[in-house]
């Protein structure tokens, strides 16, 4: 029983610490472990208690003692008497003390349940899983948008998402490793190039169709030939591209004979071109979002700009005069950390205590204990500070009028 309680306490601590560190614990898995530990403890308990198991003779003695059988069972066992009759509603003294027996079990499973249920500060719980390489989320967003616009099929999107999922399946501490970031960037770059190419191909195909449909009479045969060639090239690229175009769109495009545009009605052709235009617009629109190829990673630009500004400010510090010396600390991000010479840990104060973790430092204050520095020497004990008339004064004040009267009578 103590083992069970101790195991419950240890389990509580382990689960709680793991959760506090951001590890996602599956409840089923935790309960499986708890059940396993429980079974193991049962076996250990049986092993430890087996020396104290009683024999059948001892059990008989216990039984006859509880049932007040006057040792009839022990006597009958050695053949010196008859076995007593079984009495109805015999009380053998066995009592299940559920509170005593069930307490440790309840404590064990309750500790595990409490550790799984106890709320952990959200920032601590979500710290590791939420903060992931930005590229993953971007890719997911792009793929979602492509699928919504019916540019790619859901299967194509899932195929691309699987690659991201492989990266995410790594241990969280490896998400920002060099290899992981490199792989993510490569994947992102590949996806970007595929989207860009798809958009370009759609644009090319749409323009070719537009020209062939509306301006066919005005075009020279060479130009016509070039447009047909461009359309076929775009169609072939879309068929063989890594990011496969939606099959229905591909089928519709493949069914067009550019040399005989009259096979489709004007309305059908217009609808098809509008659709291609829209899809091309989506792809090109994605190409213009921050973080896309050629965008130059916008945040980095801002950071460079800020660093440059700070660098300019820092270079001017400590230039003689009354502010001679090292001056204020250069607030530049460099390989060496800033040394403010305080030799103290610093922390950001947080007034939102609801988001505080257990054991997290909320603030650090610099101060001193309030010590009463007023000099206090030993005071004279028992000294009489009364400058009155001594005993006479006391005498007068301590006696009641009745007592005074009695004394006067005595000494008269």
């Amino acid at each position: 029983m103590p083992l069970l309680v101790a195991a419950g306490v240890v389990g509580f601590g382990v689960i709680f610490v793991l959760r506090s560190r951001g590890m996602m614990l599956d409840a089923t898995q935790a309960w499986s472990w708890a059940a396993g530990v429980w079974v193991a403890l049962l076996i250990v308990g049986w092993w430890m208690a087996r020396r104290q198991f009683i024999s059948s003779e001892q059990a008989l003695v216990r039984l006859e003692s509880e049932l007040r059988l006057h040792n009839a069972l022990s006597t009958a066992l050695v053949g010196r008497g008859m076995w007593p009759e079984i009495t109805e509603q015999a009380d053998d003294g066995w009592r299940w003390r559920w509170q005593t027996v069930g307490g440790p079990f309840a404590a064990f499973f309750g500790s595990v349940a409490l550790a799984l249920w106890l709320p952990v500060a959200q920032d601590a719980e979500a710290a590791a899983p939420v903060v992931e390489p930005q590229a993953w989320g971007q890719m997911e967003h792009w793929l979602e948008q492509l699928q919504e616009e019916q540019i790619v099929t859901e299967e194509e999107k899932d195929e691309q998402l699987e690659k991201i999922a492989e990266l995410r399946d790594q241990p969280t501490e490896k998400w920002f490793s060099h290899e992981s970031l490199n792989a993510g960037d490569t994947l992102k770059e590949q996806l970007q190039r595929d989207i860009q190419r798809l958009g370009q191909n759609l644009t090319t195909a749409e323009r070719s169709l537009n020209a062939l449909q509306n301006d066919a009479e005005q075009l020279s045969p060479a130009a016509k030939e070039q447009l047909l060639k461009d359309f076929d090239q775009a169609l072939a690229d879309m068929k063989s591209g890594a990011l496969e175009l939606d099959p229905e769109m591909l089928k519709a495009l493949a069914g067009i004979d550019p040399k005989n545009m009259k096979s489709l009605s004007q309305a059908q052709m217009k609808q098809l071109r509008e659709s291609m235009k829209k899809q091309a617009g989506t792809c090109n629109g994605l190409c213009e979002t921050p973080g896309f190829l050629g965008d130059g990673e916008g945040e980095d630009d801002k950071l460079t700009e800020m660093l440059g500004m700070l660098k300019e400010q820092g270079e001017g510090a400590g230039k003689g005069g009354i502010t001679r010396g090292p001056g204020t600390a250069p607030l530049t991000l460099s390989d060496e950390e800033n040394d403010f010479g305080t030799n103290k840990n610093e922390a950001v104060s947080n007034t939102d205590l609801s988001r505080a973790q257990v054991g997290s430092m909320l603030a650090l204050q610099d101060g001193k204990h309030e010590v009463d520095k007023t000099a206090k020497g030993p005071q004279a004990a028992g000294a009489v500070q009364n400058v009155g008339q001594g005993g006479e004064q006391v005498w007068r004040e301590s006696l009641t009028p009745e007592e005074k009267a009695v004394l006067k009578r005595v000494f008269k």
Partner: protein
Amino acid sequence: MTDAYASDLEIQSASQHVAALRRTLNEVLFGQEELIDLMLCGVIARGHVLLEGLPGLGKTELVKGLSKALSLTTRRVQFTPDLLPGDITGNPVLQEVDGKREFVFQPGPIFTNLLLADEINRASPKTQSALLEAMQERRVTVLGQTHTLPEPFFVLATQNPIELEGTYPLPEAQVDRFLFKLEVLRNSAATLAKIVTHRELGVEPQVASMLTREAFAQMQATARRIFLPEIVADYIARIVDATHPGQSQASQGVRFGASPRAALSLAAASKARALMHGRPNASFEDVQALALPVLNHRVLLDYTARMDGKTSAGIVRAILAEVPVQKLATPRTLKEAA
């Protein structure tokens, strides 16, 4: 050939006799059922009994009734400080036999089946020891001649818990020879009313003989052949051992614990009690019922324990509560384990 253990027939017969004796003695002494049971148990176990109680509670009547019911001879000796050993055991008397003078042994009152030694603590230690030697050996040696006491031989001694001036408390070694020390308690008002109704002052109650001497001897022999299970013997041994200082928590304040004779006495008394209840074996319940009268006078307390108000009876009760019926590694409850 006699069987090593008592047969069912013998046990049944003995229990019937005991029931008759019990009924008879309860008609002699009202309201003392427990005392009568213990007295019968003592005599069936061939033990001597020390009765302690105030005068007039019926101790002598009980002894007389018992002797009549068992067809035994009885004598009574009032112990006084000037009583000499010879006054009990008997004296050699110079007599002229065939013209020669020689000492002829005149048996004392001890030559009886049932001796009532009234106020035994008033006699001198020398006289007490003479009686107590005879109790143990069941024979008397005077002037080199050994005289065997009649069979059966019991001493039922009494002592008063009051007027202790001029008394000689029995030495521990001699008290140990009494199987039981029984306290004769005063009667309740209802019992007193019954006594007043059914008794006349100076008139002894009529007691019929219920058992011959031989049948009684047979009953005693049957009691000896009652089965004593090993587990019960072990229980007796552990109880007696627990009376010694340091052997149990309850024995704090004990100066001397009970002797091996106490263990034998407890076993014999348990067998006798089992026979009285018609059982073929002694049991834990017999031991628990008889532990107090057997061990009460054998557990001697030290000065501090007496000052603390502890009593031997309290110690024995505490030992009974502390010592389990069987020595097991597994405690009965978690509280015991703690």
